[in-house]
């Protein structure tokens, strides 16, 4: 890979953003259908030999809606009656903050962090030992199990401990390749993409869960050397090139490639951009740049002039004429950023759980060093977390006003 040692250092760390949607369907649907079937006949409430396990569905749903995610899981484990219903019905939860999945004190221990209750839950699955995180979305984390010659990718969800395997990557890849996927791997629309620049060529690999092998698309890379991060939005894979010096776009339907101008943002104007995160946020593409010298993030939004073209060919033709705007606020959302991961969050109570991931750095120096660094990061993240909560509170107040 044509990159300096420094770049390799910066970009050999993986980072990802994650959203978690536990398999819950639209709540509204459940409520309306629930109302229609008000139980009048046969629901005699006079029998005191009643059993709590026979509570009507409507009532169980109403109770579940008033519980946090963790309590919902336990509630459903009480008896058959309480379990069956909850499966098929849309249920929301009280959780307002994203759950996070992080690496624990030892290399192979992971935990889930519940920010509402400020509790950690340990996750154990032998598949995760020595696996590396590539991406995360809707409660699913894409891992790679590294072997000497190829990378075996698999999805994992810490919430239900499920694993979905993917075919091995065709190419013998160097340490870092950018990865993203479109949606939950249990959805038929899920596609997984990886992008890398090797020998002045951009190689985009693509597959779906259940595929036997990856498909590859190769384009000339020009002068670009690195792909920082990629993100999927409206049928297009956006690729941040050379520390956000440019944004490349791969049209997943037409299988063609284009570099966007004007490029964001800082090349030559500011100091070093240490990290670039592309984030899909409610139909917008955000680029979060971490300026190392300032120890600050700057967030940009790809500005659309005409939303109606979003899914059309016209959109693809016009794609290079859009601007990047620096953004101070994202309406009703907060952006969770740290050096290794980012995600966004809507304030209004919704069904989604978000999931954030922090990664081990892949560097020489042995496990001890890695552990130490991991600890430092923990502390950083805690601070970061406090800041987010504070900011969130402020924004919430603004919303109320």
């Amino acid at each position, binding site marked *: 890979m044509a990159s300096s040692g420094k770049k390799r250092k910066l970009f050999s760390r993986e980072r990802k953003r994650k959203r978690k949607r536990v398999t819950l369907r639209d709540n509204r649907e459940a409520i309306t259908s629930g109302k229609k079937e008000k139980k009048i006949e046969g629901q005699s409430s*006079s029998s005191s030999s009643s059993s*709590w396990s026979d509570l009507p569905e409507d009532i169980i749903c109403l*109770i579940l809606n*008033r519980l946090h995610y963790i*309590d919902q899981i*336990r509630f459903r*484990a*009480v008896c058959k009656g309480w379990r069956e219903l909850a499966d098929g019905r849309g249920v929301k939860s009280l959780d307002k903050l994203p759950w996070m999945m992080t690496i624990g004190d030892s290399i192979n221990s992971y935990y889930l962090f519940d920010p509402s209750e400020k509790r950690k839950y*340990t996750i*154990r699955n032998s598949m995760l030992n020595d696996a590396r995180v590539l991406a995360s979305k809707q409660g699913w984390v894409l891992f790679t199990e590294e072997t000497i010659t190829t990378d075996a990718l698999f999805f994992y969800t810490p919430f239900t401990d499920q694993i979905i395997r993917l075919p091995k990557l065709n190419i013998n890849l160097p340490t870092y390749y950018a990865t993203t996927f479109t949606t939950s791997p249990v959805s038929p629309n899920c596609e997984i993409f990886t992008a890398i620049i090797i020998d002045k060529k951009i190689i985009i690999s693509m597959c779906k869960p259940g595929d036997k092998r990856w498909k590859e698309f190769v384009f000339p890379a020009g002068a670009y050397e690195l792909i920082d991060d990629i993100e999927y939005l409206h049928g297009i894979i956006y690729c941040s090139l050379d520390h956000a010096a440019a944004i490349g776009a791969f049209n997943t339907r037409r299988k063609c490639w284009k570099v966007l101008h004007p490029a964001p943002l800082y090349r030559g104007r500011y100091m070093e951009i240490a990290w670039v995160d592309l984030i899909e946020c409610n139909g917008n593409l955000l680029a979060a740049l971490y300026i190392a010298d300032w120890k600050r993030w700057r967030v940009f939004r790809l500005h659309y002039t005409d939303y109606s073209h979003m899914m059309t060919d016209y959109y693809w033709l016009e794609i290079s004429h859009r601007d990047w705007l620096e953004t101070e606020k994202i309406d009703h959302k907060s952006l969770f950023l740290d050096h290794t991961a980012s995600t966004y969050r809507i304030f209004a109570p919704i069904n989604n759980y978000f999931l954030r991931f922090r990664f081990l750095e892949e560097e020489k120096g042995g496990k001890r060093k890695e552990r130490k660094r991991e600890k430092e990061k923990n502390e950083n993240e805690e601070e970061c977390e406090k800041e987010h909560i504070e900011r969130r509170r402020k924004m919430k107040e603004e919303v109320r006003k």
Partner: protein
Amino acid sequence: MAIMYALKSSDNEIFEVEQKVIEQSETIKKMIEDGAATGEIPLQVSSKTLAKVLEWCKQRQHKTVENENDDNKGKRKKERDEDDDIKEWENKFSDELKADKDVLFDLLLASNYLDLPALLSFLCQLVADMVAGKMPEEIRRMFNIENDFTPEEEKAITAEHGWAFQP
């Protein structure tokens, strides 16, 4: 003079109630509107439970009537006092239900059957508060629920969300 209705519980006890109080129940309101409510209105609710239901409805009714009679002067303070009163009343009501879970259960079903959304919501919140932070076994004990999972099923549940059952 307020219109009164006679409600008959499943164990044949008669409750004389003002129309305004009982109209909070969408089910009964509809019966009245449809003209189906002549004479005694038979309900599939025990007298013990119905008494509780009416206790709730009267409290709610009390509150709305008072608000209507208020003029704006001193309303704020009054509202605050009232809120405190209501809270106190609701706490007492909750404590009684927590102590007698059979009544709570019957009341849940009755509020669903009579279509009393405010009461139903209040009770569901009460149950949610009771189960929050508790393990399945504690919840079973609290509500006297039998664990009807087979060992295999239980194992599968624990395997699926093992982390959530860590003490």
